[in-house]
């Protein structure tokens, strides 16, 4: 007996997580408490997402893990290896070939399909937490659908900055009932929350699981005179030339030179493979 149970977790833990996922799907956007386990990685490294993925994976799945859109960062590589070792599932970097995608802070650029599941790693699941620190109070606010405070916060953004300056973890209302933190995805990704795939959210340290079923209405909170805007850096990608993808800004030297590149590495790579070029793709400096 030197092997792990399939997908690391013991069966009773998986049953507990699975029951939470089902209740989360039945009440979209509501945060279901669950007995989060210690995982062989620190809190803040995706323990919630890992537990949700472990309870969801079957041996037939192909897993993709991204961290801020990238497949090749430490967090993504370690989680991919973790499931290669403990579940024996296939892994991929290609969005189209994945059946389960675990993500930290991005939604892939490629449109997800009915056959895919997107698992988010969530640091702070409670959208009202920075406005009201007491769990007893935020729970009551959700039960009474009392979300005025969130609008006050967005209004204060406007009064201080002239626009809603919240740029990530932008609050949404799910299916006309629960205000939900979509995890710290850029607000550029918010319109993609209405998708064909099942979305599951896992917060390990905070011990919450929530979900958004496919084709569920997800509305970014805003005002009539200050409507929601999905913003991104106003540049094309310097490697693949894409004008419609979310970009990372990379500082190149001490002289202030910088470049913008797609945060979704698989999207950028596949575009370059198709022959698309950006401002810096010919210089050979990258």
């Amino acid at each position, binding site marked *: 007996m030197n092997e792990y*149970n*399939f*997908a690391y977790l013991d*069966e*009773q833990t*998986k*049953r*507990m997580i*699975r*029951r*939470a*996922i*089902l*209740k*989360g*799907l*039945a*009440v*979209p956007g*509501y945060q*279901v*408490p669950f007995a989060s386990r210690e995982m062989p990685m620190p809190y803040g490294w995706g323990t919630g997402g890992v537990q949700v993925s472990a*309870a*969801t*994976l*079957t*041996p037939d799945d192909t897993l993709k893990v991204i961290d801020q859109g990238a497949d090749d960062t430490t967090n993504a590589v370690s989680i991919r290896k973790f499931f290669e070792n403990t579940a024996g599932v296939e892994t991929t970097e290609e969005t189209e070939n994945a059946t389960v995608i675990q993500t930290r802070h991005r939604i892939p650029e490629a449109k997800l399909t009915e056959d895919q599941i997107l698992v988010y790693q969530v640091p702070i699941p409670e959208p009202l937490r920075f406005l009201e620190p007491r769990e007893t109070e935020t*729970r*009551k606010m*959700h*039960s*009474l659908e009392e979300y005025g405070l969130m609008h006050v916060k967005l209004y204060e953004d406007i009064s201080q900055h002239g626009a809603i300056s919240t740029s990530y973890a932008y609050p949404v209302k799910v*299916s006309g*009932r*629960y205000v939900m933190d979509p995890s710290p995805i850029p607000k550029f990704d918010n319109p993609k929350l209405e998708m*064909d795939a*099942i979305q599951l959210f896992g917060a390990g340290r905070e011990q919450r699981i929530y*979900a*958004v*079923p*496919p*084709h*569920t*209405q997800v509305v970014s909170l805003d005002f009539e005179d200050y409507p929601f805007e999905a913003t991104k850096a106003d540049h094309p990608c310097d490697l693949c030339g894409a004008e419609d993808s979310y970009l990372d800004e990379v500082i190149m030297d001490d002289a202030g030179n910088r470049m913008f590149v797609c945060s979704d590495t698989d999207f950028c790579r596949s575009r370059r493979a198709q022959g698309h070029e950006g401002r810096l793709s010919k210089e050979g400096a990258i």
Partner: protein
Amino acid sequence: MNAQTQFSGGFKNAPIDAAYAFRAAMTVMARPGVIRLISGTQPPAPLSVAAGTLLLTLCDPDTRVHLAGGLNTDAVRQWLTFHTGAPIAVASEADFAVGTWQALGTLTQYRIGTPEYPDRSATLIVECDDLQQAGAALTGPGIKDTAHLSLPDVPALQANAALYPLGCDFFFTCDDRLAALPRSTLINAEG
């Protein structure tokens, strides 16, 4: 019932079989109206393969199970207890209840959660003679335009949906076929 049947009929390879079974259960709960096959266990009659597999996938000593009507037999109780360790409970305290629609009785006796914890509600596993993507029209989360599902009692299920975000959630089982109806789904009897 002899010991042989009581101890047999569980998952052959629990981690793998339960993973496939849960994926089917999650898919139907996320997409009301969709029907998936679910198997891996051989429960004692009159429990269906789908209902038995679902119970072994989701139940353990932490969940109270209500066996309604004709399902409350020695054979089913012993089988369920051996394979899950789940305590048998009355309807009003159950986390899971399983039986035919008639046997499950009036929905108001089941837990619907509390305003602060709507997840603390019962999940009903309804054994059906027939399960088809026809009949009542369903709209809501998980459904692109409209879905159809043969439901046993539209007015009672509409009343349950009206309690949203409280209410019970339902699985419908027929042989090895599985469908679901979460409380979030709006039901139109007209079809």
